[in-house]
């Protein structure tokens, strides 16, 4: 009776609808953006490729320890001489300008993001880029209202912020980091992930267009060593990192005792709990959105489906029918639902963990879709009959792979949901408000969605418990992470601005960005 398989052989399939890349005017090679200008990097340059076609996009510079130092020095100078002297209202004006420029160049940014990251244009166009603009608008409004952040009157900026972001939402994570930092009065040195530098480099153009004072925003590209040099630079006052828990742990060690403030936003293994009184059709949509949004490359993805045993079969049947309608393919096609996996390395990891899942006895089901010849792809996959001890139920896969577990009572649901070293997010599906509140109260997760999933808003703080990191981004709380109260001691990290770092061993932290899952 389940022969309803919509959209295969559909009239929707008659013609692809690719977004044109002619709007992009990319350079052949990109340098580093330091002190308002493009400069050459002293490391070995690397290529950025499109994960959907494996075609070369551009050559990207690598910043070595010396380049990182130049960038930090520029940021310190800009902080001392200009940015810290501006009024909040004036800082806000710059941020509003950036927000408007992001909107003006929205289509271009969306195309660049999908090309470089592999995510469907539908998502970069309708989610990532609009949220980037929203983040800058939101924090632009805060710049002259810092007295109300909750730290008392006249809170002070920290100084120079070192920011390292992952490859899953390249431009959006940049906005999450840069917008509050600048609104609070800091200057920044940001390192995008190695595989997704492109939109950050386009953002540098926007910074120029907005005529932001030189050195307020600096971008250093490169792999883990560049990130390590940045984190360890003695003249950095604040480190903000989004990525994998393993790297986060290294960073926490590296900054321990230095007086640098740290926020870490790390991995997750979120439970998406579906009760038997849930709005079923919307819950199925929410499960899909929870784990297959952005190919599952989401730190807060609902990768563990906890479904009440009495409706397990119904939910799984509906889920499979729905997944059969998902369209995998060219990220630049407007009808694509599932794009490419960001890198070969990540694809290998997803494959490896999926094979482990199968070997451990879980029931594997893969959506019927044609996999393109070139590029990195992984079809939406469900593992049914997964036990809590299974590795695929414990480790972050960071791909389009859903583990289905069941529960019998709310108490069991809560216990299973919390039984993870992570604690970033969770979802609850029920039509009963009192149940939602009672369960949410007992879940140990930083973000809990009720009857929805993967919704983001600049006004809402985001961050984790336990191994998912510490600190909050977004909202008033996100601003506090870049401020200190007026009376507090000045930062011990305020070291001379000389090139002390060049004499340091540049790297003990090896892989700061490659494979770093948010």
């Amino acid at each position, binding site marked *: 009776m389940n022969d309803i398989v919509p*959209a295969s052989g559909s009239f929707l399939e008659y*013609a692809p*609808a690719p977004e044109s890349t002619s709007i992009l005017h990319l350079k052949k090679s990109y340098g580093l953006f330091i002190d308002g200008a493009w400069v050459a990097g002293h490391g070995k340059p690397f290529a950025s490729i499109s994960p959907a076609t494996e075609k070369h996009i551009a050559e990207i510079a690598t910043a070595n320890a010396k380049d990182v130092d130049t960038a930090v020095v520029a940021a310190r100078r800009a902080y001392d001489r200009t940015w810290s002297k501006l009024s909040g209202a004036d800082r806000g004006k710059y941020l509003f300008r950036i927000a408007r420029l992001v909107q003006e160049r929205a289509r271009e940014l969306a195309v660049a993001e999908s090309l470089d990251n592999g995510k469907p244009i539908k998502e970069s166009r309708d989610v990532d880029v609009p949220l980037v603009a929203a983040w800058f608008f939101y924090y632009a409004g805060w710049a002259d209202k810092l007295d109300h952040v909750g730290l008392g009157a006249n809170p002070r900026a920290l100084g120079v912020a070192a920011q390292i972001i992952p490859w899953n939402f390249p431009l959006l994570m940049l906005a999450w980091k840069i917008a509050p930092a600048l609104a609070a009065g800091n200057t920044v040195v940001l390192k995008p992930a190695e595989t997704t530098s492109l939109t950050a480099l386009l953002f540098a153009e926007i910074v120029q267009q907005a005529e932001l004072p030189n050195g307020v925003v600096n971008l250093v590209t490169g792999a883990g060593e560049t990130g390590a040099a940045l984190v360890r630079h003695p003249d950095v006052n604040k480190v903000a990192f989004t990525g994998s828990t393993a790297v986060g742990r290294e960073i926490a060690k590296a900054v321990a005792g230095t007086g640098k403030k740290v926020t870490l936003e790390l991995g997750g293994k979120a439970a998406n709990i579906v009760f038997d009184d849930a709005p079923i*059709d919307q819950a199925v949509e929410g499960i899909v959105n929870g784990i297959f949004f952005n190919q599952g490359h989401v730190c807060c993805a609902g990768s563990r489906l906890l479904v009440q045993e009495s409706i397990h079969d119904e939910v799984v049947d509906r889920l499979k029918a729905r997944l059969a309608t998902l369209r995998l393919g060219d990220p630049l096609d407007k009808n694509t639902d599932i794009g490419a996996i960001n890198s070969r390395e990540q694809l290998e990891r997803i494959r490896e963990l999926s094979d482990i899942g199968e070997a451990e006895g879980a029931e594997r089901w893969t959506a019927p879709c044609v996999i393109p010849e070139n590029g990195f792809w992984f079809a939406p996959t469900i593992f049914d009959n997964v036990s809590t001890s299974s590795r695929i139920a414990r480790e972050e896969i960071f791909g389009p792979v859903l583990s289905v577990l069941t529960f019998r009572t709310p108490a069991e649901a809560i216990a299973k949901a919390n039984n993870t070293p992570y604690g970033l997010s969770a979802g609850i599906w029920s039509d009963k408000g009192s149940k939602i509140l009672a369960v949410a109260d007992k879940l140990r997760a930083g973000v809990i969605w009720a009857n*929805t999933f993967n919704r983001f808003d600049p006004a809402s703080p985001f961050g984790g418990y336990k191994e998912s990191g510490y600190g909050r981004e977004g909202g008033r709380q996100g601003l506090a992470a870049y401020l200190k109260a007026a009376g507090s001691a000045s930062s011990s990290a305020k070291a001379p601005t000389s090139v002390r770092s060049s004499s340091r061993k540049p790297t003990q932290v090896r892989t700061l960005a490659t494979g770093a899952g948010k």
Partner: protein
Amino acid sequence: MLGGDLTERSLRLHLEGLSGVDAVGLEQRAAGLGTRSIKTTSKAWALDKIIELIDLTTLEGADTPGKVRSLVAKALTPDPSDLTAPRVAAVCVYGDMVPDAIAALGAAHGDPANGNGRSGLVSVAAVATAFPSGRASLRVKLADTADAVANGADEIDMVIDRGAFLSGRYGEVFEQIVAVKEACRRDDGSYASLKVILETGELNTYDNVRRASWLSILAGGDFIKTSTGKVAPAATLPVTLLMLEVVRDWYRLTGERVGVKPAGGIRTSKDAIKYLVTVAETVGEQWLQPHLFRFGASSLLNDVLLQRQKLTTGRYSGPDYVTID
């Protein structure tokens, strides 16, 4: 289906036991379906498909035989400047206008599923049961229906008793639909197809729409239809998506295919294409045929014809290049 005998109580337990609808999630899904992008060849196919699924409608107090003849002429030859344009599925009129419609259709009167494109047949649908309010005694509603069927109507568009539904008298609504269905019976034992109008604008909540959809299908409706077109809001994409989900679930349970007809408020090709996409991705493309999906519309047809002309000629024309009614 309801486990044994059908009683008011078992019906109520079933309808109230249906899983709830989350409004935000439903509307988000509908909006997502609305962003599907259709190009060139698919668009040409879609435009012709829309025409073939239209119930071309006139439901005015001022309707006359002349107005109905003019409507029928439009149904048969939608675009006099391009004779490749297909015919619509049906004309929809008040019950007393049925003989005029049948006379005007002549040899082209028949089941739209037989023959297609330019040689397509066009059926006659009549609204009945004290349309649009439904505020009359059951006797009057049944007489209204029987009269339209006797006049030769192929399809009956009835309205449910929203008053009874909203006050929780589900059994009464159910019995009325069953009785109207019986009144659709012709002398030869065949039945006119029954479309049950829920008037979703008056039901107000998505939970009510889901219950009314189930109730109408359980009572034997061949189609569930959103609105009369006389109440705002009429058809919306989320409401239609929800009704399609009920139809899909019913098909999974019973193997029976029930039709869906969004009516009122769909005026542009762009909107209509969103409905086609929603049908395709919810129940499948086998539903895109006149026995299972219709658009209740009047002004939609001309917009589709303008878009069609644009595809053929490469230029946009203007409203003077399509005929009024």
